[in-house]
């Protein structure tokens, strides 16, 4: 009986503003499920448009205020919840990515869950100024962060760029692996059940160069984190960043847990601003 059961297939969708949507353009691309061959492994995925990028940035901007206003402890709890949700879907994602990649992605989420209430003390501090003032410098999230994920490893490489941005209190618009977008699209379903508010993370599949340049050119984006590994695209993103003085960071595709956490502070620093406050003492 079970052998003859007709399965219900999943329709892959973009994740924008907490909603699962098709591309407004109506376009689609093809993706192949790993470990399959021929037509059986072919699935349709949405091919996001420049308009989808703009919608995603608008959603991320709207979500930024409330997300950054949450306590660091609360953001840590939510990122940890995301790790729990990813762990519980380990088998599902291991069928798309590989299990070791999923495990590392879970651990990366846990690692950055632990940073939410710690990076302030490490990156900031009291300034012993030579005047009667209490002066202190504290890092704050920069705002909306654009992420260009590497082709591979498609899940770990994506999570390793998203997690530091979220830990610091930013919201994210990410362009998924062009070669293997399925794990990233599945990740939306994991994050969607992990108390991450709608719009805090937005995930777009499609043609990387088309989407990344639209994202990089967006005037309401504060920073771009590029792990796409395409030097030409990277240079173009730098030029676009200069238009509105966006923070730009380029890095290699993260291939291991160790690589994702070795430069954790640099990753967080790249998506934060340091604010120095002065307060009179006496008088």
């Amino acid at each position, binding site marked *: 009986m079970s052998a003859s059961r007709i399965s219900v297939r999943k329709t892959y969708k973009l994740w924008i503003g907490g909603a699962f949507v098709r591309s407004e353009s109506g376009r689609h691309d093809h993706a192949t499920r790993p470990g399959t061959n021929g037509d059986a492994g072919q699935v349709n995925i949405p091919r996001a448009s420049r308009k989808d990028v703009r919608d995603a940035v608008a959603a991320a901007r709207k979500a930024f205020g409330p997300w950054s206003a949450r306590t660091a402890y609360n953001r840590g709890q939510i990122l940890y919840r995301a790790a729990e949700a990813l762990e519980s879907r380990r088998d599902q994602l291991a069928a798309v990515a590989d299990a070791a990649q999923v495990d590392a992605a879970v*651990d990366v989420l846990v690692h950055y869950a*632990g940073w939410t209430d*710690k990076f302030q003390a490490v990156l900031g501090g009291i300034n012993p100024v030579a005047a009667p003032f209490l002066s202190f410098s504290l890092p704050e999230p920069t705002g909306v962060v654009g992420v260009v994920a590497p082709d591979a490893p498609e899940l770990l490489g994506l999570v390793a760029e998203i997690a530091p941005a979220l830990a610091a209190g930013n919201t994210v618009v990410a362009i998924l692996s062009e070669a293997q977008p399925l794990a990233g699209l599945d990740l939306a379903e994991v994050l969607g059940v992990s108390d991450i508010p709608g719009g805090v993370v937005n995930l777009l599949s499609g043609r990387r160069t088309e989407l990344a340049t639209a994202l990089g050119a967006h005037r309401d984006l504060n920073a771009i984190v590029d792990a796409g590994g395409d030097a030409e695209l990277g240079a173009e993103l730098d030029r676009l960043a200069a238009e509105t003085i966006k923070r730009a960071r380029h890095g290699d595709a993260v291939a291991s847990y160790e690589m994702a956490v070795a430069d*954790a502070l640099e990753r967080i620093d790249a998506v934060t601003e340091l604010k120095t406050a002065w307060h009179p*003492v*006496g008088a």
Partner: protein
Amino acid sequence: MTTEQQRTSIVWDYAPAPEATDHVRLADRYGIFIDGAFRDPAESRYEPTLNPATEQPIAEIAWAGAADVTAAIDSARAAQPKWAALPDRDRAKYLFRIARLIQERARELAVVETLDGGKPLRESRDVDIPLAAAHFFHYAGWADKLRYGVNAREVAPLGVVGQIVPWNFPLLMAAWKLAPALACGNTAILKPAETTPLTALLLAEICQEAELPEGVVSVLPGGGDTGATLVRAPGIDKIAFTGSTAVGRDIQAALAGRPTSLTLELGGKSANIVFEDAALDQAVEGIVNGIFFNQGHVCCAGSRLLIQESVLDEVIAKLWRRMGRLRVGDPLDKNTDVGAINSAEQLQRIETLVAAGEGEGAHRRTIACDLPEHGYWFAPTLFTDVSPAHRIAVEEIFGPVVSVLSFRTQAEAIEKANNSRYGLAAGIWTDKGAKAFEVANALRAGVVWQNTYNHFDPTAAFGGYKESGFGREGGPAGLRPYLKVVR
């Protein structure tokens, strides 16, 4: 006798709102927890733990002796290298599990904390248990970031740590002690207080549920003799103690000449300073929270209230009116503000010092309220006309008793606030930020609250100056007592 009674003019009568207890699973008897399992103490001694609100026994609790201390140290010693050798992120995962299990069992733990210790359920539910979970969560996150926390390239754990906690915040203090110790790769032996061992034993159950490796945490219930044996036992690399200054002094002396590392979080007689430019209604709420929170069984309680002379009468009038609204009684009632005194012994100590206050000529006011027939109770009490030399202005009462002193100038406030052998905490109430920071800088106290009081957070260091102890708990500073910098 200068006692003055005030008719409480409560506007509404509250219907009783008792918290349900039927979801709590308690055994009749709890052994010691060693090697990941409960067992009988070597001398088979058990003592009842009482509900201080009813004087009824709740459960029989093992009383650990010298042989048990040795067994716990052997177990912790054997487990320590493996625990420290775990990948940092795996140690973190165990601590995250414990944090989550505390959250999952939060209401049960809150009820047990209230049954065993007498504190209002509102506090155990909203403060003790959530903060305990938060501490484990915070230090879980440090386990794989230790080098960042102390600015070092390589760190190492100390080894086996003995941790002795008091009865005022039993689970929370256990969390303050265990979470950083374990995160740093130490194994720990926890000695809960004689009158409040239950939540520490439930925490041992939680360690089992988390599948924490055997021997990483041991729990040795018992009395002062158990703690004294633990302190003096060979094979302990560090002692962390929270409790009275008298016992802390004994411990420091006992460890003289030994390489054992030590941190002490001791008593206090913290000044809560109200300036004339403060928002007085807000200040009164802060005064009440500062001294009546947890029946005043708080080492950092704002027990010395310093009020600027120009607003002295006004603040005292407001405070006295507010005190009349405090609801004293059944700790399990969700409307209760002030619960039971933790033990007969502590009640005796409070009564002795209050009698001394009256004897030395201070003016006592105690709110009128119906106290339950059984159990240990002390109604909220205010002393005015207190001289800085009175015992109630100098000694820690550790009860719901506040002593009011006055001052004229900022310099006098600072002088009086610092005129104490203690230096744990202080409060400052003023609308002028520049003044608040200037006073804060001048106070010799480990925690200074501005326009708030009794705020605690896992990210914020807590600990005292002077005879209030040394070492800090909370935040990256809380890692230092539990590790050594290799390079």
